[in-house]
Structures are given as structure tokens and as C-alpha cells.
């Protein structure tokens, strides 16, 4: 190609439209379908309130919409979304400390299908669940985060490590420490009763 042709081609070359709105809508629809439940569980594990968890998930996808140009640069979408949801949930929890607690744990225990809980789980009352969760809240922030995220089957240890910006071995030790400390708190609570 001669220089003139190259020059003419340069004049008439226009940047192709990378992502049309339909593309973005399709991407977000796919993300909602794939990750909304995981994000709901992440948000619910922090807020323990169904309405707030739903609001956080919506807020998470609004953030995705806001940063749609970065979507192609994101390596692990699940990690990115969970991190957004986790941070939003922590913010919400921090703000709601001034308000009275509105936990839906009792509702959750009632609404869970019986097949998803073992027989002995059903025996444990919702108050006991609430007690354990209250003790989880007493754990240090890093251990609590690792423990709560490890409860979600969708997330591997590696993904949790990415979310927490640390190594897998560190996550394992955090989970171990959290469980040990929680077990100690539960034993202490039982002995005091």
C-alpha cells in the first residue's frame, strides 16, 4: 500500500464501536443471572437482612453499569463483584449500627426447605443460630470475612484470597483461627449458662 493510500485509509478510518448498549445490556443480564444469588448470599451474610441484601445486590450491579468500560479489563468477574458487594455490605452495616438491628435469621430458618437442612439442624432453634452469628460478629474483621466467605460454596479458597487481597495459606489460617476462636466462645457461653 502506497503512502497516499495509507493516508486516505487513515482519513476514512473510524474507530469501531466496541460495545453497543445491547452488548452491555446482554453482559449485565448474564452477570445478573449468574452471580446475583452469590452476591445476595455475600450481602446477606453481612447484613442478615433480606431487603438490605437485595438492595446491596442492586447497588453492586449499578456499580457495574457505572464502570462498564472496565468490564473487558476484569480478569475474574466473580471476585470483582463479590468484592464490590462485600464493601457495600460493610458500609451498609457500619451505617446501620446507629439503627436498631433488623435481622431476618428467624425468617430464613423458617423459609429454608427442609431438604437443605439436616435433621439435627432443624432441631436447633433460630435463637441459637442468632447466638452463633452474634459470636461471629465478635471475631476480628479479617477472620470474620474469611469465615463468612468460606461458607459460600461458590467461592474457592483462591477466590477468597483474591477478594481479601492475600494468599491462600493466609486465608486457610484465618479460617482456622476464626473457627477455633468461635468454638472457644461457644464453649465459654455454654459453660456460663
Amino acid at each position: 500500500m502506497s503512502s497516499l493510500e495509507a493516508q486516505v485509509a487513515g482519513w476514512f478510518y473510524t474507530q469501531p464501536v466496541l460495545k453497543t448498549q445491547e452488548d452491555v445490556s446482554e453482559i449485565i443480564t448474564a452477570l445478573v443471572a449468574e452471580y446475583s444469588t452469590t452476591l445476595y448470599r455475600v450481602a446477606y451474610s453481612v447484613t442478615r437482612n433480606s431487603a438490605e441484601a437485595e438492595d446491596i445486590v442492586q447497588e453492586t450491579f449499578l456499580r457495574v453499569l457505572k464502570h462498564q468500560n472496565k468490564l473487558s479489563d476484569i480478569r475474574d468477574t466473580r471476585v470483582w463483584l463479590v468484592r464490590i458487594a462485600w464493601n457495600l455490605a460493610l458500609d451498609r452495616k457500619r451505617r446501620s449500627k446507629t439503627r436498631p438491628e433488623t435481622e431476618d435469621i428467624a425468617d430464613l430458618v423458617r423459609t429454608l426447605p427442609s431438604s437443605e437442612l439436616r435433621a439435627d439442624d432443624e432441631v436447633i432453634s433460630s435463637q441459637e443460630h442468632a447466638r452463633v452469628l452474634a459470636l461471629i460478629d465478635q471475631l476480628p474483621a479479617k477472620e470474620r470475612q474469611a469465615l463468612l466467605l468460606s461458607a459460600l460454596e461458590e467461592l474457592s479458597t483462591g477466590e477468597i484470597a483474591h477478594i481479601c487481597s492475600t494468599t491462600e495459606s493466609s486465608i486457610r489460617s484465618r479460617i482456622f483461627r476464626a473457627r477455633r476462636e468461635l468454638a472457644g466462645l461457644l464453649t465459654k457461653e455454654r459453660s456460663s449458662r
Partner: protein
Amino acid sequence: MSKHPNSANNSEERIDTALRLFAHAQPPANFEQRIHARLYREPAYADKAFASKFGRFLYAQRIVFASAAAAVACCCAIVIGSVQHSRQRTFPATGVHVSAPGSGLGAASGARIAPQPVAVPEDAHSRSERKATGGRATVPRDTHKPKGVAVPESTQPQKP
């Protein structure tokens, strides 16, 4: 620390059971629809949709728009060039007619100023110069002439 032999296992089970609540938490009904509704309600989404549609329309019709812009530019160039050219062609005034204002007389009695003669530059010369002398074409005698062509003898001009 634990008095009951199974208390450690029991604690682990209680922790697992409590954590399982989160693992099996199900979002409420029509959860995804509400997310989509919220996203579509977002003004940024609507604005971007309009901007994207407009951008896509411009991109699809880019050749048409480029041709139209080129045509308009050509028209503008022609009009401007024409106007510039007509301004440069200033015809010499053959006679400026100046009426006498305030004299009550019309154009017929106005002063007529003759146009100024055009000054000829020193180095000016005519476009072509006549080489022939005496205003007549001459054919030299030794000029090769084809056979059969009769060439009249040049006559000397009569002296008065």
C-alpha cells in the same frame, strides 16, 4: 476447657449449621426482575442508551454524512471563490457621473470626469511584434517551390 466430651464437635456443628444458613440463603421471588427494573430506571442507563443509539446511527451512516459534508464543502468553496473573483474584477470607470448636489440640477448637468489614462510601464511591450517589413509578405528567390507552382514576380512598389 470443655466439660462435655462432644462439646468440641458440637461447637463445630453449630458453627457449620449457622454458616450453612448463608450458603443456602435464597433471594426473594422476582429478585432478578427487580434488579433489571432498577438498572433500567437508572438515568445514566437511559442517557447512555440514547447516546449509544445516536452514536450507532452516526457510525452506520458515516459514508453518507462524509459525502454530504464533502458536497457542502465543495459548494462553499465554489461560492466563496466566485465571490472573491467577482470582487477582483474592477472595471475602469468610463466616466464618473457626479451630480451637483444642492444645485437643483439633474444628472444631465452633472460634472463628467474623464477617466484617468492608464500609465504604460517603461518595460511594457506588445504581445506580438510584426516582423515583416513594409507590411507585405516577401518570398525569397531561392525558396524551394514545388513544380508547377507559379509564383508571381515581386514588383517594386511604385514611387509617387
